[in-house]
C-alpha cells in the first residue's frame, strides 16, 4: 500500500504554548493582586479599574480561557495531528483560531476592568465578544472535525473523543447561556430572569468546569501520560466507560450550585444525585491515569514531567471526590458561600489543570525544539514550589471556610446569634487570607522559574516547524463488522451527533420543566419591576461586580433569616431580575433583605468609606460613584430592552421614565440633605442607594398589606 508523505504543523503548537505561559503569568498575577486586596483593600490603588469586583472576573477569565484555554489548544493541536496521522485540516483556520482567541482575550482584558460585564460567572464578557467567541469556537470545531475527516488512522483514540465532546458541549453551553438582549454596544440584559437565569447560568458554569477544564484535560492525560511514561494506558476498556459515563452524568449536576436556593426542590435533588454518581467515572479516569504508571513508579522520582502529572491526576481525584461531597445538602449548607469553595476550585485549578499543563509543557518544548530540558533541577524546584503553594493556599482556605460558616450559624444560650455582626466573622479569617496569598506567591514563583527554563530550553535547541511523517491513506473500502463502538470510532460525524445527544438530554430534562412553569406560575402580586432609577442603580451594582462578594439569596435557615432580618428568598421575588444576582460567595454579607435595613445616609457614608460605618471592613471605598453621573439618555433603551424580555413596563413608559427617575432621585437627595449631605440627583451613588433600598422589600409590602 502506498505511503503518503505529510508534515505536522508544530508552529501552531508553539504559538499556543507561548500564549499559555504569558497568560498564565498575567492571570496568576491578577489572582495574587485580588488575594492581597482581601487583606489590603488599598491595593486597588483607589481606582475603579483595579478594584476587586471588576478584576476578580478578569482573574477567572484569564486563568480559565487564556491560560488553560491556550494550553488546551496547544495540547490538542499537537496530539490530534499525530493520533490521526494528518496535518491540521487548514493552516488558515489554525491561525484564525489562534489570533482570534488572543483578540478575545485582549477584549476581555480591556472590557472587564472598565466594568463592562454581564455579571454571569465565567460568562461575564459582553455580547459582541460573545459573538466573537462563538465564531472562533466554530473555526476551531471545523478545523478539528476537518482533520478527523481527512485522517489516515481509521479509529479515533479516546483522547479525540474527549476533544469532540469539549467542542460540542462548550458550543451548546456558550450559545444557550449567552442569550441576551443588547441595550448598547457593551451592555445587555440576560434573556432569562431570576430562577431560570440562575439555572441556565449554573448549568453553564458547572459544565464549563466539566467541558473546558476537565474533558479536554482528560483527553490530554490519555495522550501525554502514556507518552511520558512510555507505556499504554492502564485499561482502554475503562477509558470507554469513563468517557461515556462522564459526559452523560456531568451535564446533570449543575443544580448542585443552587442547593437551598429558590430553585425547585426536585431540580436540587437531581443535581445532588447525579453529582454523587459522578464519583464513579471521575475516579475511574483518575485510577486509569495513575495505574498507567504501574511498574514505572521509579521513573516518577526522576522525571519532572511524570511528577507533575502524578500530582495533577491526584488533585483531579481529590477535587472530584470533594465536589460530590459538597453537593450533599447538609455539607453544602456549611460550605456554600464560603472560602471552602475557593479552596476546592483551586485544588482543581492549580493542581489538576496547572500541573497537567506544566507537565505537558516540560514534555512538549524539548520535543519540538529537538533538545533536552535546560535544567531538570529548576523543574524540580518548580514542582516543589507549586506543590507547597497549593497546600499553603488550600489549607487556610478550608479553615477559613469552616470557621466562618460555623460562626455564621452559631447561636448563644439565649437563642440569639453569637456573632450578629457579619464583620466579626470576616476579621477572624483575615490571617487566613494572608497565608493564602503566600501560597499563591509560591505557586507563581514556580511558574516564573518554568518560564525561564522553557525559554532557555528553546534557545539551546532548534525549532522544527514542520515534522515529516508517512502513513498510508485511509482505504475507501467499506468495512463491515466489528463491535458497535468500534464502528462508531470510525464514524466521526455520527460519533459527534451521539455526544451531542448525550449532553443535550441532561440539559433539556433539567431546564424544560422550569421553563414550562413560567407560564403557569402566578407571580407574587406585590413584586413590581424596578423603577428607572433602581435600574440604573442595579446596572452600577453589576458594573462594580458587587455580586462577586455579596449574595442576594437568603437560604431557609434560621441562622440566615435571623441575620438578614426577614424571610428567606422566594422564587417569585426574582421574576424581573435580568440577570439574576444571587452570587456565589459571601465575602461580605448577603444583601437580599438590605432594603430598608439602613438609612440613606448610612449607605452614602458606607460607600464613600466603608470603615467609617463598619470599622475593620475589607470592602474598598467607591469614591468615583460620588463624582460620576448616570446617563438618563439610556433609560428608555433599558426599559425597552427589558420589555422585550418580558418585564411588564407599560407602553410609552420609556418616554416619561426620566421624570419618574428624577422624582425618586430628588426624594433621596432631600433625605440626605436632612442629614447634612449634599449631592446632585444624577450622581451614581443616588441610583445605587435607590437600588439597595429596594432590595427584597417587595414581599414586605405584601405582608404589610395582609396585616391591614
Amino acid at each position, binding site marked *: 500500500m502506498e505511503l503518503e508523505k505529510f508534515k505536522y504543523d508544530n508552529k501552531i503548537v508553539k504559538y499556543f504554548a507561548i500564549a499559555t505561559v504569558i497568560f498564565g503569568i498575567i492571570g496568576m498575577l491578577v489572582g495574587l493582586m485580588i488575594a492581597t486586596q482581601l487583606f489590603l483593600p488599598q491595593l486597588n490603588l483607589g481606582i475603579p479599574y483595579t478594584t476587586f469586583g471588576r478584576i476578580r472576573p478578569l482573574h477567572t477569565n484569564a486563568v480559565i480561557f487564556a491560560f488553560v484555554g491556550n494550553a488546551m489548544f496547544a495540547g490538542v493541536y499537537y496530539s490530534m495531528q499525530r493520533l490521526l496521522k494528518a496535518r491540521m485540516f487548514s493552516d488558515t483556520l489554525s491561525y484564525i483560531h489562534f489570533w482570534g482567541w488572543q483578540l478575545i482575550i485582549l477584549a476581555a482584558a480591556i472590557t472587564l476592568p472598565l466594568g463592562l460585564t454581564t455579571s454571569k460567572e465565567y460568562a461575564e464578557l459582553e455580547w459582541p465578544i460573545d459573538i466573537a467567541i462563538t465564531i472562533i469556537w466554530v473555526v476551531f470545531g471545523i478545523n478539528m472535525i476537518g482533520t478527523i475527516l481527512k485522517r489516515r488512522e481509521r479509529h479515533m483514540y479516546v483522547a479525540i473523543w474527549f476533544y469532540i465532546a469539549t467542542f460540542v458541549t462548550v458550543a451548546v453551553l456558550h450559545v444557550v447561556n449567552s442569550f441576551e438582549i443588547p441595550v448598547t454596544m457593551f451592555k445587555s440584559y440576560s434573556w432569562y430572569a431570576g430562577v431560570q437565569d440562575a439555572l441556565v447560568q449554573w448549568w453553564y458554569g458547572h459544565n464549563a468546569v466539566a467541558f473546558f477544564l476537565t474533558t479536554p484535560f482528560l483527553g490530554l492525560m490519555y495522550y501525554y501520560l502514556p507518552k511520558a511514561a512510555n507505556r499504554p494506558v492502564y485499561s*482502554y476498556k475503562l477509558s470507554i466507560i469513563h468517557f461515556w459515563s462522564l459526559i452523560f452524568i456531568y451535564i446533570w449536576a449543575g443544580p448542585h450550585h443552587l442547593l437551598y436556593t429558590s430553585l425547585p426542590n426536585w431540580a436540587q435533588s437531581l443535581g445532588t444525585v447525579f453529582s454523587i454518581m459522578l464519583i464513579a467515572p471521575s475516579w475511574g479516569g483518575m485510577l486509569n491515569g495513575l495505574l498507567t504508571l504501574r511498574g514505572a513508579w521509579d521513573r516518577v522520582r526522576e522525571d519532572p514531567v511524570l511528577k507533575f502529572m502524578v500530582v495533577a491526576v491526584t488533585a483531579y481525584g481529590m477535587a472530584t471526590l470533594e465536589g460530590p461531597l459538597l453537593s450533599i445538602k447538609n455539607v453544602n449548607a456549611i460550605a456554600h458561600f464560603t472560602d471552602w469553595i475557593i479552596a476546592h476550585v483551586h485544588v482543581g485549578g492549580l493542581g489538576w489543570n496547572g500541573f497537567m499543563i506544566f507537565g505537558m509543557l516540560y514534555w512538549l518544548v524539548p520535543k519540538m525544539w529537538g533538545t533536552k530540558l535546560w535544567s531538570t533541577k529548576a523543574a524540580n524546584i518548580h514542582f516543589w514550589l507549586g506543590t507547597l503553594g497549593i497546600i499553603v493556599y488550600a489549607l487556610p482556605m478550608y479553615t477559613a471556610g469552616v470557621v466562618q460558616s460555623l460562626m455564621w450559624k452559631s447561636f448563644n444560650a439565649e437563642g440569639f446569634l453569637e456573632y450578629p455582626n457579619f464583620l466579626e466573622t470576616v476579621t477572624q479569617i483575615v490571617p487566613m487570607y494572608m497565608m493564602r496569598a503566600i501560597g499563591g506567591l509560591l505557586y507563581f514563583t514556580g511558574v516564573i522559574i518554568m518560564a525561564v527554563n522553557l525559554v532557555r530550553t528553546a534557545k539551546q535547541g532548534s525549532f522544527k516547524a514542520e515534522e515529516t511523517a508517512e502513513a498510508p491513506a485511509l482505504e475507501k473500502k467499506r468495512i463491515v463488522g466489528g463491535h458497535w463502538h468500534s464502528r462508531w470510532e470510525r464514524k466521526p460525524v455520527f460519533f459527534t451527533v451521539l455526544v451531542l445527544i448525550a449532553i443535550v438530554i441532561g440539559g433539556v430534562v433539567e431546564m424544560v420543566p422550569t421553563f414550562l412553569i413560567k407560564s403557569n406560575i402566578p407571580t407574587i402580586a406585590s413584586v413590581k419591576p424596578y423603577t428607572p432609577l433602581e435600574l440604573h442603580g442595579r446596572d452600577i451594582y453589576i458594573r462594580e461586580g458587587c455580586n462577586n462578594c455579596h449574595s442576594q439569596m437568603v437560604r431557609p435557615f434560621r441562622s440566615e433569616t435571623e441575620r438578614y432580618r426577614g424571610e428567606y428568598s422566594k*422564587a417569585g421575588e426574582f421574576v424581573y431580575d435580568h440577570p439574576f444576582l444571587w452570587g456565589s460567595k459571601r465575602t461580605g454579607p448577603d444583601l437580599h433583605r438590605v432594603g430598608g435595613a439602613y438609612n440613606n445616609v448610612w449607605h452614602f457614608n458606607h460607600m464613600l468609606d466603608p470603615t467609617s460605618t463598619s470599622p475593620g471592613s475589607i470592602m474598598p471605598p467607591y469614591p468615583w460613584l460620588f463624582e460620576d453621573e448616570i446617563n438618563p439618555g439610556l433609560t428608555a433603551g433599558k426599559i425597552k430592552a427589558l420589555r422585550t424580555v418580558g418585564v411588564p413596563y407599560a407602553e410609552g413608559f420609556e418616554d416619561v421614565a426620566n421624570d419618574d427617575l428624577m422624582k425618586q432621585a430628588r426624594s433621596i437627595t432631600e433625605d440626605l440633605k436632612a442629614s447634612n449631605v449634599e449631592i446632585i440627583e444624577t450622581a451614581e451613588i443616588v441610583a445605587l442607594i435607590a437600588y439597595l433600598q429596594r432590595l427584597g422589600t417587595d414581599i414586605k409590602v405584601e405582608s404589610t398589606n395582609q396585616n391591614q
Partner: protein
Amino acid sequence: MFKHYFEQVENVAIWPIISLTIFFVFFIGLTIYVMKINKGHIQHMEKMPLVQDQEGFNSIIDSKNQNHG
C-alpha cells in the same frame, strides 16, 4: 402561597425518573459491550499514543498492524 408554584406542573417527578432510566439503560449496554470487546482492537487502540512520529519511521511499522476490523 408561593411555595406551591412548582407543584402546579403535573407529574413533575416523571422528569428525573425518565432521566435516571435513560442513563441506567445506556450504562448497562455500555458495560456489556465493553466486556465483549475484541482484544486485538483494544491493543491496537491503546498503542496509538506510543507511535513514534519522528520522520515517520515507526508510523510505517505501525500502519502494517492496523488492517483489522
